[in-house]
């Protein structure tokens, strides 16, 4: 459920208050951008699709149920937008050149291990972007959006067994890619 302050903002947005929507965008743009980035693997495209997602969300705001949290609704909209974009436009996507410096500092890790951890995460991002679109989308929905198999099938408009197969293959492929990466660095 949207927290009370947000609830007030959303009521204003539903009445057409764009300034209120600006506050919502600032709160959620980073998480939406990350969804787009994980699925698309390209920063510029991810920024474009993040903008497009917020534009669509504004026009579809009447469909958003205030009794539910906005984040998952918004991220699902963005994920579907990216997925359909990939299906529609097969671009020669250029992976991000070097995301190491842009990975946010994580307080869980000490400064001495930061570089190594960044390389590890960079390898994981690269591995995710190597996967076929459907497998990447399945991973996004399951691991980052917490969908059930049934919800994934509905979101991807595919039979449940097909979606499960994409998810399993994606994980398997990811494990293999990371194994290879690990072997290289040894």
């Amino acid at each position, binding site marked *: 459920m949207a927290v009370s302050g947000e609830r007030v903002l959303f009521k204003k947005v539903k009445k057409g208050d764009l300034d209120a929507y600006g506050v919502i965008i600032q709160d959620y743009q980073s998480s939406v951008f990350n969804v787009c980035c994980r699925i698309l693997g390209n920063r510029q495209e991810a920024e474009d699709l993040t903008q497009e997602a917020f*534009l669509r969300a504004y026009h579809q705001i009447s469909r958003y149920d205030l009794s539910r949290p906005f984040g998952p609704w918004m991220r699902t909209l963005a994920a579907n937008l990216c997925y359909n974009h990939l299906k529609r436009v097969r671009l020669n996507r250029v992976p991000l050149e070097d995301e190491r410096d842009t990975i946010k500092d994580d307080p869980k890790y000490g400064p001495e291990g930061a570089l190594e951890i960044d390389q590890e995460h960079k390898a994981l991002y690269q591995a995710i972007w190597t996967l076929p679109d459907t497998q990447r989308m399945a991973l996004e929905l399951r691991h980052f959006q917490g969908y059930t198999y049934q919800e994934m099938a509905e979101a991807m408009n595919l039979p449940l067994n097909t979606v499960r197969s994409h998810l399993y293959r994606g994980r398997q492929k990811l494990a293999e890619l990371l194994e290879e990466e690990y072997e290289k660095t040894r």
Partner: protein
Amino acid sequence: MKKHAKHIPGDDLQTYLDGNLDQSALHNVERHLDQCTACREKLSRLESVFARLENLPALELKKDLSTSILAQLRNDTKLSLGITWTLVLEALGAGTVIGFLIPAFRTAAWLPVLIDTQTEIRAAINIFLTQLASSWLVWWAVLRLNIEHTTKSFFTTPILPISNFSPWILILAAGGIGVLVNYILLRSNPIRRQN
């Protein structure tokens, strides 16, 4: 180590990690895992993938997108209203052309004759309007025949006795449907600048 001829399929291991195995399958998998090192290693690799995905740090968005999104939304609102009114005016204009101007031009050919005969202005206007009406009716009769002819050539039985309706009702209905369709299209899929 006790050897097991049949290892757990990869799919079952993933379903196990997702927590979606039913009670009896779960029991079988756990019993097998207790006894099979190879399957435990396979499980451990998968668990590592799960953990790494869970701990994947967020990428930083380097710029605030809200300004450009809001600018675009403000522009869209203006654009949508502008387009709606343009379409309404276009529909009205088209209706006027169809309903009035075509017969009016035909009737205008009579004007020099009326002026030449030095008729009074009021009488000239009356004659002009009468001519306009009759010209319009002739024009409509021709149109009706054409519509009927076209309809019959496409359908063996006429699906709609379109020629029985008043022409004004048809024009208004067409205009109304046009405006309604435009409104629905603009509302559900607003036209905006493509990225």
